[in-house]
């Protein structure tokens, strides 16, 4: 009688490691047809809705005049570009003469006054300031400037007094350094000096003309040897932002600033020997017409009146945000997948097999989270990397100027969007583990992510304060990672989620979502260990 050898599996015995767990979860994911299809649907929705938005966002301008009632439609013009590649507004009144080589200019300012329009327009071409209200805007500016030329967007450095931000030195649109505080008046005048030495321009200020303080040093790369230098004045438009319901609504109109100068003195070579006045502006700038601007000279005493602003442009459409509108559709799809990745196990009773095979329950959830995050991140990366250039191309074809966001920002937005999708899916997994009910879990996550965003960006639902709070503390803060426009403290405008500005920095916003996800995961692990499956 022969003895039968006991059965021995031919499978090699392998360690019960985390790798095996990952492999098991990956097998589960890729063999459920619905989830793979769902992921493809998410990618297609992101790309498709981005393309839809691009095609249907025509931007066109047409100048209707009595002579030409049906003008041809033209694409919207781009604002001028500054030395750093950013969009800028560069309109002001410039009293200038060429400065050859090194030199300096010193002035004393004794007053800064202004006029502003509250109703959006201005009087008439003959009398443009009719009906305007006296008052100086917080960032109205008058002072001295050295600029590469008269082209809008060319490099410059300037010392100025402002309406309510004291003396500032600003250069190349984005740089701003504070000098003496307080308002300028005949009793408390401000002395300003700009000195050029090669490419370096240094700004000084003084309250008495004898004791000088260095405010800042600007290096203007490639400044031509003969630059334009002189006096300038500009005032950004007046705007009254409604703090009530109505979100980002604002009313206002263009404004003027007038600076009064005396003791104008110059050092160096100034070949022209006389001053030329010129309004630097383009037709669509938010500024009064050139006829309202100008200067007067009596000896070394000047008044200069100008309108417009020398600053980064913030009234731009965030074209990247428009291209990525489909992120929300993709988000809903990946959250559904994330929730089902765990609730399907409960529904089918599979969870008992899973936990029997791997009794350390925390590691099961960790493996699921890793597999889900990696898969969704890869899909999101593909979707965002395709959508942004495609959307940009279609938006350009529809006549939209494209916001110059830069390669680093674009990379951050692509990677950030993929991370946003991946972390949201993991949040779905965690909430699904806690609730064990698909419908409830999907609703909690999507209502937590999308509803605050929707309430914050739709004008007329919530007051501005509540909007800001919503996109600061709820998971919706993570959409900050898709912001391509930049907020500048030296420009007053409506910085609200509805116009593309989030209160948190991009990665800080994503960190808020990570914190919520970590919290949900911790609770999920705790409950998974405590409860019977």
């Amino acid at each position: 009688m022969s003895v039968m050898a006991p059965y021995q599996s031919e499978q090699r015995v392998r360690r019960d490691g985390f790798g095996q767990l990952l492999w098991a979860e990956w097998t589960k994911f890729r063999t459920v047809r619905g989830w793979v299809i769902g992921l493809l649907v998410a990618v297609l929705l992101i790309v498709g809705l981005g393309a839809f938005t691009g095609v249907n966002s025509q931007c066109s301008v047409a100048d209707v005049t009595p002579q030409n009632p049906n003008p041809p439609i033209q694409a919207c013009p781009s604002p001028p570009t500054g030395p750093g590649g950013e969009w800028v507004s560069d309109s002001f009144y410039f009293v200038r003469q060429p400065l050859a080589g090194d030199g300096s200019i010193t002035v004393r300012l004794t007053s800064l006054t202004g006029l502003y329009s509250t109703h959006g327009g201005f009087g008439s071409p003959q009398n443009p300031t009719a009906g305007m209200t006296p008052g100086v805007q917080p960032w109205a500016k008058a002072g001295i400037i050295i600029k590469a030329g008269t082209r809008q967007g060319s490099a410059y450095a300037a010392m100025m007094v402002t309406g309510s931000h004291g003396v500032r030195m600003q250069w190349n649109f984005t740089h701003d350094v504070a000098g003496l505080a307080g308002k300028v008046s005949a009793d408390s005048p401000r002395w300003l000096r700009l000195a050029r030495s090669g490419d370096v321009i240094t700004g000084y200020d003084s309250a008495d003309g004898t004791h000088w303080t260095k405010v800042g040093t600007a290096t203007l790369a490639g400044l031509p040897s003969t630059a334009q230098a002189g006096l300038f004045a500009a005032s950004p438009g007046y705007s009254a932002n409604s703090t009530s319901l109505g979100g980002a609504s604002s009313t206002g109109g263009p404004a003027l600033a007038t600076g009064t100068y005396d003791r104008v003195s110059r050092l160096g070579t100034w070949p022209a020997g006389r001053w030329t006045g010129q309004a630097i502006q383009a037709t669509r700038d938010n500024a009064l017409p050139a006829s309202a601007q100008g200067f007067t000279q009596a000896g070394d005493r000047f008044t200069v009146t100008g309108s417009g602003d020398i600053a980064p442009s913030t009234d731009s459409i965030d074209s990247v945000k428009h291209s990525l509108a489909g992120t929300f559709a993709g988000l809903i799809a990946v959250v559904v997948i994330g929730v089902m990745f765990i609730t399907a196990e409960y529904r089918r009773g599979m969870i008992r097999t899973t936990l029997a095979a791997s009794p350390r329950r925390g590691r099961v959830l960790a493996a699921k989270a890793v597999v889900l995050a990696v898969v969704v991140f890869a899909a999101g990366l593909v979707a965002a990397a395709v959508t942004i250039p495609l959307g940009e191309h279609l938006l350009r074809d529809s006549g939209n100027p494209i916001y110059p966001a830069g390669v680093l920002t674009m990379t951050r937005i692509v990677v950030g969007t993929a991370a946003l999708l991946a972390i949201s899916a993991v949040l779905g997994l965690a909430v699904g583990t806690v609730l064990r009910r698909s419908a409830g879990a999907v609703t909690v996550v999507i209502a937590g992510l999308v509803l605050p965003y929707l309430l914050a960006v739709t004008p007329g639902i919530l007051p501005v304060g509540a909007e800001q709070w919503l996109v600061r503390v709820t998971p919706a803060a993570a959409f900050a990672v898709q912001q391509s426009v930049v907020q500048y403290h030296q420009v007053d405008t409506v910085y609200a989620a509805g116009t593309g500005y989030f209160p948190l920095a991009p990665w800080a916003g994503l960190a808020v979502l990570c914190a919520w996800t970590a919290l949900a995961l911790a609770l999920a692990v705790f409950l998974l260990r405590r409860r019977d499956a």
Partner: protein
Amino acid sequence: MTDVVHAEWTKLRTLPGTGWLLLAAAALTAAVGAIAANAVTCPAGGCQLDPAKVSLTGIELGQVVVAIVAVTVVSGEYSTGMIRLTLAATPRRWRVLTAKAAVAGTVTLAAGAVAVLASVLAGSLLLARHGISPAHGYEALSLGDGPVLRAAAGSVLYLVLIALLSLGVAAVVRDSAVAIGVVLALLYLFPIISGAVTSPAWHRHLDQLSPMTAGLYIQATTNLRSLPLTPWQGLGVLAAWAAGAMLAGALLLRFRDA
């Protein structure tokens, strides 16, 4: 038919979650409405403000809870296999769906009425405290006022239609997670895409097609001319979506194996 409705009512009533969810729907609606009304700050010159709409802001959150209840009425049966028993007991399948719609619609109507009454009450008290009162030229928020009554009753109907839409979608896709995902996508994506599209014509089309945006026009009591549809037409858009979803659900239930 009465028996079928009674059976559905028993199923819904005896689920432990139903009562809590409906209570949550009413409480969340009233709470968000109260927060929105309390957050109103209006400069002395006055602002463009629709008191009824502000008080009923909570419907935007309350509707998702109603959607959960309605989706679960159908998909819950599929996840447990109960649907086979239900259809064996009532082979005329459209009757099952009709009974489910009647039951889900009725409980939503009840919860919605409570939610809306509480919201309007809270809104009238809080808005008056923030200077939105007849003394400052605003209409008092009262259900005796025709447009306010339309907004209040319409909001209850809105919730009922959301329940029917969710029920229809759940009958089409049968899985709770996917069904609720589709419903939330239908509600939220239209306004987001409409906000991203800059072409005014498409902006208008998308708002007119959107079940949520158009449906909530019923809450407007001021500045009606600026809306692309009248309030009742707007609610009609949502009704069309709900009818379409229910029809698709009924047909698929009829011709598909459970």
